């Protein structure tokens, strides 16, 4: 088993640069996913690894052998296509047997291996059906069996669950992880669905505009986004931008250009100490913020601020509050626990306290541009005024 190495890999379609100088090493046996919005180049990248697209530049290798220019049928790589692409004129058995028949393996071996594969995907009793007689989830399993029977070094999955409904998707996700554990080969998974990518991957790469923005374990990317794109694309977040006016031992001061003239102090843990005079952005996940009607007891390392509830969105598993603090809007997630901070539920226009532990903010050394927040223009423009220990 060998690692997959992408070196300086680019692909352009005329003037459009789909993949832009990607360098990456995917470790053998890993479940690796590419996550990004549609059009970010993730599928093109996958198609280059599969051999359906020839890179304009760069190299793809599996271990020491370069496969950049090999046709798809000479690569030890198999793909699960988005719509499964099962052969409609063949039975489930013949679909799964296809790879071995092409290689002209003996009949007994084919029968035995197909049976093994169908057992692996729990479809052994459906062998004689045709693809149009089985359900979407079953097609998915057959596509997996058909690919794995060739014992590839790498299995590529192109949005494999996109066509399934939510319950089935969650079920298949676990199934895929079990299959991955059972066969032990490298899986490369492409998706635009962050929850899918986060729950399934050992390592994931966030892509945007043909480039890899950040790669690493999912919790690392979620908790420590390297860029505003990562922070914003994965999950939801509150971004707070301002100029650093002073750096103290355990807190920094941010300027507040909203007209109040005050310098606000924010007290957070920083992976790098920003220099005074720099513009910085902080990311604060909505679920990290506690919300309460009563002012909490002042504690070390807790940031607090006071705001007014502007909107309440009930989402089943949690409620999202939009809280206005000065000119800034915060999203806050609060789960429905019977143990309330207060004795009754919060209501519109109530003034509330927001508080969070200072290690829960994350510093991004980048300034958001307006275009990044198409769906949330207010959150972007008036982002800068702040807080120290509960005083506003």
């Amino acid at each position: 088993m060998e690692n997959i190495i992408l070196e300086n890999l680019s692909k352009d379609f005329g003037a459009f640069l789909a993949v832009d100088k990607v360098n990456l090493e995917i470790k053998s046996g890993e479940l690796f996913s590419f996550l990004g919005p549609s059009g970010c180049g993730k599928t093109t990248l996958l198609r280059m690894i599969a051999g359906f697209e020839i890179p304009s530049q760069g190299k793809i290798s599996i271990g020491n052998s370069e496969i950049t220019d090999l046709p798809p049928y000479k690569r030890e790589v198999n793909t699960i296509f988005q719509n499964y692409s099962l052969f409609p004129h063949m039975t489930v058995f013949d679909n799964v047997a296809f790879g071995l028949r092409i290689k002209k393996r003996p009949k007994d071996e084919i029968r035995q291996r197909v049976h093994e594969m169908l057992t692996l995907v729990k479809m052994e009793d459906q062998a004689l059906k045709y693809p149009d007689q089985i359900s979407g989830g079953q097609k998915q399993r057959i596509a997996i069996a058909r690919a794995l029977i060739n014992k590839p070094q790498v299995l590529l999955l192109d949005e494999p669950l996109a066509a399934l409904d939510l319950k089935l998707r969650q079920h298949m996700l676990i199934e895929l992880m079990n299959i991955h554990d059972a066969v032990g080969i490298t899986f490369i998974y492409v998706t635009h669905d962050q929850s899918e990518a986060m729950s399934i991957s050992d390592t994931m790469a966030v892509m945007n505009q043909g480039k890899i923005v950040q790669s690493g374990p999912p919790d690392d990317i979620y908790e420590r986004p390297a860029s505003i794109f990562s922070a914003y694309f994965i999950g939801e977040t509150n971004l707070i931008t301002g100029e650093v006016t002073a750096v103290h031992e355990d807190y920094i001061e941010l300027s507040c250009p909203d007209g109040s003239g005050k310098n606000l102090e924010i007290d957070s843990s920083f992976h790098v100490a920003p220099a005074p005079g720099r513009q910085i952005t902080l990311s604060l996940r909505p679920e990290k913020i506690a919300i309460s009607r009563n002012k909490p007891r002042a504690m070390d390392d807790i940031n607090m601020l006071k705001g007014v509830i502007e909107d309440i969105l009930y989402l089943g598993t949690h409620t999202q509050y939009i809280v206005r603090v000065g000119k800034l809007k915060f999203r806050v997630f609060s789960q429905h626990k019977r143990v309330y901070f207060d004795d009754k539920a919060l209501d519109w226009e109530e003034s509330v306290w927001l508080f969070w532990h200072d290690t829960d903010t994350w510093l991004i050394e980048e300034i958001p541009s307006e275009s990044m927040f198409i769906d949330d223009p207010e959150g972007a423009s008036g982002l800068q005024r702040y807080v120290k220990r509960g005083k506003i």
Partner: protein
Amino acid sequence: MLWLTAFFLVPYLIVVIYSFLSPDIYDVRFEVSLDAYRQIFAGNYLRPFLLSFKLAIYTTLICILLGFPVAYYIARAKEKLRNTLLIFIIIPFWTNLIIRIFSWRIFLAYNGVLNDLLISAGLISTPLEIMRTDLAVILVMVYVYLPYMILPLYSTLEKLDFTLLNAAMDLGANEVKAFFSITLPLAVEGIFAGTLLVFIPSLGAYLIPQLVGNQRSLYVGQVITYKIKNIPRNWPMASALSLTLLLLVAVMLLIMYYLFRKHKARRLQS
């Protein structure tokens, strides 16, 4: 219904009745006779039937071989180009068939355009005898019937999901194997439809053999016409030949229908 009875069933009944009558110089005598069928079963007309079948088979096969790549290319072309190409396939229908056949005569003639071109290109020194040969008949037949093969083929290939070919190649099939294991089986319906549209009319071809063929090899269509046109006329013979041809076509249709049903059923069973 009335339409069918008046213009289809009644004329056919007349043909059936005529086939059992006795010939006269200009018309028929109303005496029942099985003579026409006796001659057919004795094999007196085997040669025109064989020739017609040979012509129909060649025409159909060549149309499939030529039509498939064309239909495939059109089906894979971009939307805009695709429509233009389809119009090109249909444009010949705007000109009368006889005019098109006559232009082929001019093109293929002993001192015609084709020979002139080949001689001036230095490929041959004396003109080729193409006109009035069986080759000329097949050539013009293919020319006329090719669109009838391309259009149904195109309509099945257009529906073909080309990611299936990617999938086949991903699983280890090279282009040739992918074609034979995926594209061809999935295009069978189009080939069936095209074959129906080409083979059956080719079997009864009259006009093209008459205009570009020779009189040494007469096809069934020509024989039937001569039985009516040339004096002494033989209406019963012409009728019996027509009915035999009809019967053969019906048998062909049944066989193809059966094959097609089998092909379909294989996919729908279980």
